[in-house]
């Protein structure tokens, strides 16, 4: 079943398909990273493929190889019931600036899985709408599932988070959580960094609007 798909891909994208093999009944196609998005779109839309579900997307780190990372996607078609494993190999041995096209515009499930892949392996998905860490916190140093990340490594302590320059903190102001109609806290003077007009422009406006005598 999936063999037919592999032949189709070989015919359609002769240059993009680098290698194909099957193991334990899983058909695998290794793609050129440049045509990653194009082939994925074809597999999603072409009538003989109709892979409408991206079941899994992850990566494997092979530090001694060049290219170092394998991005692995598992596709499934609910109509035809066939599966296909797609792979592409990216990155050099330094592991810096690893890039591959994002497929989050094709399948909604790619959004979080690419974020996880970025978090764990440091692979940049070009075109992802919101590429930030998902399982780790923003101050985390390194990418834990890389083979050169020691499992015993102790992370630096995160300093107390101040201001709103933090992507995982909500854009709160000092007014958050105050009951409506009780603005007594404003009269007790500026609170922390609230007085900084660059960080809290809305705080400044609000305090001016609500306390005309101040």
């Amino acid at each position: 079943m999936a063999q037919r798909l592999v032949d189709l891909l070989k015919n359609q994208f002769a240059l993009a398909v680098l290698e194909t093999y099957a193991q334990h009944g899983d058909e695998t196609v290794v793609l050129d990273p440049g045509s990653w998005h194009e082939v994925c779109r074809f597999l999603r839309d072409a009538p003989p493929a109709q892979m409408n579900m991206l079941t899994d997307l992850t990566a494997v780190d092979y530090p001694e190889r060049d290219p170092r990372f394998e991005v692995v996607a598992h596709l499934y078609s609910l109509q035809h019931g066939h599966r296909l494993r797609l792979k592409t190999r990216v990155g050099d041995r330094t592991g810096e600036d690893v890039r591959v096209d994002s497929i989050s515009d094709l399948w909604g499930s790619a959004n979080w899985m690419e974020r996880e892949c970025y978090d764990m392996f440091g692979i940049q998905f070009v075109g992802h709408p919101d590429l930030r860490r998902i399982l780790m916190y923003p101050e985390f140093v390194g990418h834990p599932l890389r083979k050169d990340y020691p499992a015993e490594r102790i992370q630096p302590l995160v300093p107390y988070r101040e201001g709103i320059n933090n992507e995982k903190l909500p854009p709160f102001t000092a007014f958050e959580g105050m009951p409506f109609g009780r603005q007594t806290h404003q009269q007790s003077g500026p609170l922390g960094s609230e007085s900084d007009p660059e960080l809290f422009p809305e705080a400044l406006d609000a305090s001016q609007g609500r306390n005309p005598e101040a």
Partner: protein
Amino acid sequence: METQDLDLERSELELDAEPMFINVGPAHPAMHGTVRCQMELSGEVIERVDVQVGYLHRGFEKMCERGTWSQVYPYVDRCNYVSPMLNNVGFSLACEKMLGIEVTPRCAYYRIALGELARMSDHLTCDGAMAMELGAFTPFLWMIKGREMIWDIMEEETGARLTHSFGRVGGMASPPTDGFKETARTAVAEILAIVEESERLLFGNRIFLDRLQGIGKISAEDAISLGWTGPCLRASGVPYDVRKAHPYGRYDEFDFDVPVGSEGDCLDRFVVRIEEIKQSARIIEQALKKLPSSGPINVDDPRVVLPPKEQVYNTIEGTIRHFKVIMEGLKIPAGEVYSYTEGGNGELGFYLVSDGSGTPYRVRIRPPCFLVTSGLERVITGAMVSDVVPCFGSLNMIGGECDR
């Protein structure tokens, strides 16, 4: 008593037209997992929401790369802590697929019976907790009573109530106990009675139905695109069940139906789980009938299976074999596999990469919850704040599996 508001101008009492930010979780009584929803509200309507996970990340995939293949079992146990047996079975099947082993019939039926019991406990927990969060405490207590019966069976069979670590590559840790069939039959009958009683209590309750009907709708296309599987996808009307679509183990010999919803709202997800409990009961009944009362539980393969204890203690060959399997770990031939089973929440996949040594090179657990939770944003955007609770409850996010 004089209120403070009286000395304020009337205009000051009016609510801000600015959007209001509200933060639910990561620790919130209505969030039975550690997830955080940052919401931007306009009045009571959710305009934007950012769902943040990762508060329960314990680095399982990294830890799996440090031990032997058998030492992965405790980690998969702790992934989905309401149906750990299904994870055990899923991982065993993935390893066996790489080794090319087929387990004995006794083991296969035993796995199915235990796995379906675990699925019942998963759905009982989810539906019970969902009802409790909406204020119906009695069904929660009843359903947890039912789960307790399952856990008693699990304790009898495996020695542990929650984290069994009972699966083994090529078999199970021990054969079924003598009284297994009887206790399982009794418990399943009692659970079915509990479920029917809860149904009567809930489905005649106007408040309960009003809070679920038409809330948190998602279309089949959206659910497929988001990678949803399991009860949440079936509630949207897609009859995809791994047990039916790609039978593994010996599920092809069983007669059961796949309950499907039509609307894809919270009520459908609730009802699909209730119906799946009944289907699981059917499967368990058939599995108990087929389960042979004697015969080997483990395959006869010295590469992966530990020798019997009499041999280990009394013969040098047995001792060496035991030592090698424990210390070096069982060797899985180099290669990779993607094996998928129907977990409590959907397709539980294991993408395993082996380099031929006794240690896994990469264990990727494809958690169904992770993708279902990623759809929470789409489900609750545009809904009211009070709808977050039934929506989140019906998705059955399991923190351990989502964050690993």
